[in-house]
Structures are given as structure tokens and as C-alpha cells.
């Protein structure tokens, strides 16, 4: 009979008549929906960004390090990863999917060029460091096997370091001082906003032999502090990781897992952990927002009960001139749904605005990161659905009360 449009129009007219009250009532819904949208959008943007960072270095890589590097004395005697291990793993019959290994040491040394002086993390590695990590050379060349064989005094700079020290000048062919020794810059990699384990540090890459000769101790000639093990894409990463751990324990005769000094960590695993953490944060914020929505919903019910009371005479009049029980019921139900839906839409706009602002802020503070704003359509649909549902749930009781009023008694109500 009466079209839904008429109900909505009537509801809008009523809400506009009570502007101030309507806005205050909507606040709970606005805050609840807004914070869910904010955290969902921001979470997805963060996830998207971190995933793109990780996959930039290849997700088909397993890192092996020493437990001691997690704070214990790194000079302690005991089992260490060696260059022999690297060869043994490459030759291992139970690791056929293994494609390459980058292995070496990281040393922190001063880096000088003309008047510039700063501290940099120097990776002493084989040329595999570029292929395994997927570092692209944008100027000059990578160091090669003969550079390693001859312990050549050459260095490849990370794009970030090159930009910091050389600005627009071409670094290739320039002499720089690392740890007080002259090196020749042969190449520059693409800028890595954050490499594995080197967040915020300036990075450069040198042949492992050169690093060991100039900065290493004699007894550590054969050791490496990390390995990055690359395997074929499409390999069962968990199985590969298990076989790798087994092979490492076998090579070092470790029988007791508690004494295993090696840390085996896949980047795939890191992504999954990060995903779980983000999901946990999103879940927690959603739960808090849920409470806000519940409180908001009760606020809606409260105000609708007041509205029904205030408009008792109006209800009586409407019934007298022909409104049926259901007509009155729908009128008030739709009024509460319109209230929560507007609240929801404002909340969505607020959440999107805030998360967009947050992403923009990150991009201003860290222009290199290039964080993209990720729009989550499913969250918007869910938010709309939740808003409507709250309107129905908390509007139903007041609407039933209104519908049940007797026309004569309602007209006489003072």
C-alpha cells in the first residue's frame, strides 16, 4: 500500500525536525562503524604494503641464522654456519628444490666519501646476494665471481645509501672509504625501503672474501653468520624447511633440538605470522567497535522510545485517519533504520577519511615507501548491513509499542 519511499521520506522529515538529537543519537553508530572501517582499511593497506615489500625480496627464500645473534654472545665458541655447509646444502640429495644460496657476514663500518661520513651495514656475500634477494642493479654492475676470487676492493651501494651520499652525482667509479680502506664503487642497486633485517640502515654489498680479509678475524675465515636459501617456486615450503633443518642438524651432529643453535625462518612463515597479528588487531578493534555499536544501538532504542512517547497523539491521529498497525510499525522501524543507516554512512565516510589521511601521513613522513591506500569493498558492505541490522533490532521494540497504541487512548494522551 504505502511505498517504502514514503516511509523513508516521512522518517527523514522527522529526523531533520530533531536535527540535534538525531546527530547525538547517531554518534555511537558513527564511532563504531567509523573505527571498524578505519582499522579494516588501514590494516589492509598495511598488509598490502608489507606483502609487497616481502615479495620484492622473494618469498621463496628461507633464512638461516644463529640463535646467538638474538642477543647472546656472538663470539661464543660452538657450532657455526660455515662455507662448507653452504656447499654441502647445495650438493644435498634431499634438497633437490634448492636453487641458490646467498651466505656471508654483516659488518657495521664507517662509510666516507669526501666530507660525508656515516655508518653502514656492509654485507660480505657472494654474487648470489643480488639474485636471491631480487636486488636490481640500476647503475654499473654487480660484483662477480672473479671479484670474490681476487678479494677485489669493490662495493655495490644500495640506492638509499647512494642517494644519501652522492645525491644526483653518479657514484659508479668513485672511490669511497669503508672502515678506513679505499673501495671502488662498481654499481648501485634499486633503493630497498627495507631489506631483510636492516630496517632503516644504510646498506652496501662487497665480496665476502674482501670483507673477511679486511674486517674479519682469522679464526672466522670459513664461517658465515647468515644464509639465504632460495628454492624453486611452487615447492612445499614447510616440507623443504623441515628437510633443511634436518640436514643442518646432521651436518653439525646435533641430536638434541634444545641445543640447536640454528634458526630457520621462512619469509612465507613471516608473512603468515604478520597476517595473523594483523587479523588479531583487526579482531580486537572490531570487538571494541562492537561494544560501541551495542551502546549506540541501545541509545537508538532509548531515543525511539522517547519519540514514540512524544508522538503518542500523532500516532493516535494517524491511526484515526486510517493508518493500520503495520503501517505505524513500519513508520517507526524505518525511522530507526534510517537513523542508523545515516550514522553508518557517516561512519564509513569518517573511517575512510581517517584511514586515507593516515596513509597520506605515512607517505609524507616516508615518501620512499609508496604505501597504497587499499579500499575494502566487503567492509563497506558489511558496515551497511550492520547499520541496517542495528536499526531493525533496536527499533523493533519501540515500533511495536507504537503500533499497539489504541487510537482513542493515544489521541487523549497528555
Amino acid at each position, binding site marked *: 500500500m504505502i511505498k517504502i519511499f514514503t516511509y523513508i521520506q516521512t522518517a527523514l522529515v522527522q529526523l531533520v525536525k530533531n536535527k540535534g538529537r538525531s546527530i547525538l543519537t547517531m554518534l555511537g553508530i558513527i564511532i563504531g562503524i567509523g573505527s571498524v572501517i578505519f582499522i579494516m582499511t588501514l590494516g589492509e593497506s598495511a598488509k598490502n604494503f608489507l606483502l609487497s615489500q616481502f615479495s620484492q625480496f622473494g618469498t621463496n627464500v628461507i633464512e638461516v641464522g644463529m640463535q646467538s645473534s638474538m642477543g647472546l654472545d656472538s663470539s661464543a665458541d660452538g657450532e657455526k654456519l660455515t662455507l662448507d655447509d653452504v656447499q654441502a646444502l647445495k650438493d644435498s640429495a634431499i634438497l633437490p628444490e634448492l636453487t641458490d644460496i646467498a651466505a656471508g657476514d654483516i659488518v657495521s663500518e664507517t662509510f666516507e666519501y669526501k666530507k660525508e661520513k656515516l655508518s653502514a651495514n656492509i654485507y660480505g656475500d657472494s654474487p648470489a646476494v643480488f639474485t636471491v634477494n631480487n636486488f636490481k642493479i640500476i647503475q654499473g654492475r654487480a660484483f662477480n665471481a672473479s671479484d670474490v676470487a681476487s678479494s677485489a676492493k669493490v662495493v655495490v651501494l644500495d640506492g638509499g645509501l647512494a642517494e644519501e651520499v652522492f645525491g644526483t652525482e653518479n657514484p659508479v667509479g668513485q672511490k669511497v672509504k669503508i672502515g678506513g680502506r679505499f673501495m671502488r664503487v662498481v654499481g648501485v642497486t634499486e633503493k630497498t625501503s627495507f631489506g631483510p633485517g636492516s630496517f632503516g640502515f644504510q646498506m652496501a654489498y662487497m665480496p665476502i672474501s674482501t670483507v673477511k680479509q679486511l674486517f674479519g678475524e682469522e679464526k672466522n675465515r670459513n664461517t658465515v653468520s647468515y644464509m639465504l636459501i632460495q628454492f624453486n617456486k611452487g615447492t612445499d615450503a614447510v616440507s623443504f624447511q623441515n628437510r633443511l633443518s634436518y640436514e643442518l642438524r646432521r651436518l653439525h651432529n646435533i641430536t638434541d633440538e634444545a641445543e640447536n643453535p640454528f634458526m630457520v625462518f621462512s619469509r612465507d612463515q613471516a608473512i603468515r605470522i604478520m597476517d595473523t597479528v594483523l587479523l588479531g588487531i583487526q579482531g580486537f578493534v572490531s570487538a571494541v567497535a562492537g561494544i560501541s555499536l551495542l551502546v549506540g544501538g541501545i541509545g537508538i532504542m532509548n531515543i525511539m522510545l522517547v519519540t514514540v512517547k512524544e508522538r503518542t497523539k500523532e500516532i493516535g491521529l494517524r491511526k484515526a*485517519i486510517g493508518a493500520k498497525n*503495520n503501517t505505524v510499525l513500519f513508520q517507526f522501524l524505518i525511522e530507526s533504520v534510517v537513523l542508523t543507516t545515516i550514522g553508518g554512512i557517516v561512519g564509513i565516510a569518517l573511517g575512510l577519511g581517517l584511514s586515507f589521511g593516515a596513509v597520506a601521513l605515512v607517505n609524507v613522513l616516508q615518501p620512499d615507501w609508496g604505501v597504497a591506500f587499499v579500499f575494502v569493498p566487503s567492509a563497506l558492505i558489511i558496515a551497511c548491513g550492520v547499520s541496517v541490522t542495528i536499526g531493525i533490532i533496536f527499533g523493533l521494540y519501540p515500533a511495536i509499542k507504537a503500533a499497539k497504541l489504541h487510537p482513542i487512548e493515544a489521541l487523549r494522551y497528555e
Partner: protein
Amino acid sequence: MSASSKKGLLEVHNLKKTYWNGTVAIPAVRGVDLTILEGEFVAFMGPSGSGKSTLMNLLAFLDAPSSGSYSFSAVNIEDFDEDYRAELRNATIGFVFQQFHLLPRTTALDNVRLPLMYAGVKRKLQKERAYEALRRVGLTDRLFHRPNELSGGQQQRVSIARALVNNPTVLFCDEPTGNLDSKTAEEIMNILSALHQDGVTIIMVTHEPDIAAYADRIIHMKDGKIIKS
């Protein structure tokens, strides 16, 4: 046209209405027999508590009788449920109340349009008919005024327009001049008289004899019964 040639529009026999206050029965209408003809202007008079308002509510389908029979346009309606009564009110009854009962902060035109909305009349037609009803009560210059911008007499004219907009069979007026000064009351009664001249059946409740005097027939009530007709 003589009275005998007109049909009996409303016919009630032994109509009773009893309210219950807990276990205490309060008889408000105690057996009324009455026939009202099409085109008649009838006034109910009586002291408060005489049952005249309750009777009017029963006749206007606002309430269901406890017992007795009531036929409207020769159809028995005493067993109709609430929704059906609402539909019937919308289609056949116009109400004019002492307190006007206009929707606040709503224009005269929209107030008058309201019954048509419940009748499912198309929007454009609603406005045309509401305008026409307001023209009949002489308020075309106040279409977009809200009740608080109108005088008491103007508000009552809006409410008469609202009652007329659905072309009702019967116009029920409950103390239509109760809230108005005597000069305005006269204006309103002149409008009602004119409508009566046009053939509208009017049933009015009042306690003022000079207002009742506008009617063709005055029915006096006391203690839930008709004492003089």
C-alpha cells in the same frame, strides 16, 4: 427531499460499551438504539460522562462495541478487526477534533494530504486534492504555513480540510469549537453548515446549545443512554 425518502446510513441496536478497570466494569454506553440518515446533521449533547464521546468513537469505528449491532451503509461492521476498521475510517470517515490534532512542524498542505497517503493515492493527485480541500475551507493563502503559524480558527479549518480530503461519507466533529472564541466558532460552524448544505452527513458532539443549534437534530444523552431525540 423529505426525511423518509433518505436511507438509514447508520443503524445501531442495543449498542453497549463497557470498559474494564481491573475487575470493575464501567459501562459507558448502555444500550443505544439509533438511526442516522444520509445527509443529516446530528448533534449529541450531554454532560461529561454521559457516554456521548464513547458513542461517537463507536459510530466512527475508532472502537469496537461490547455488544449490540451496528450497520453502516447496510453492512454489519461490529465484528471487524482493527486493521479493517482503520481502512474503513480512512475510506468513509472524516474527523474534526477539538484540539485539531495537526502534525506539528508540518505544512497545512502536508497535513491535509495525510489521509490520502494512507489511502495509497498517487503523490501528484494527493497534492491536487489537498489543495482542493483547502480551497473549500478558504485557506489557499496558507498552504505552506505550519500549525504554529496559524490562528486557532485557521488550524481548525486545516483540520476540516483534512477531514474532507477523502470525500468521506460521514464527518465526525468532536467539540469542533471547544478551543475557539465565539466569533471564530461561528466561522467554523458556517463552514460545517455549508458542507451540510452540500450533502455531507455530519455527526457532532458538543455541550454548547448554541453550537448544537446548527444541527437538524439534537440527541441528548445521560448515563450512557439517549434520553431525548
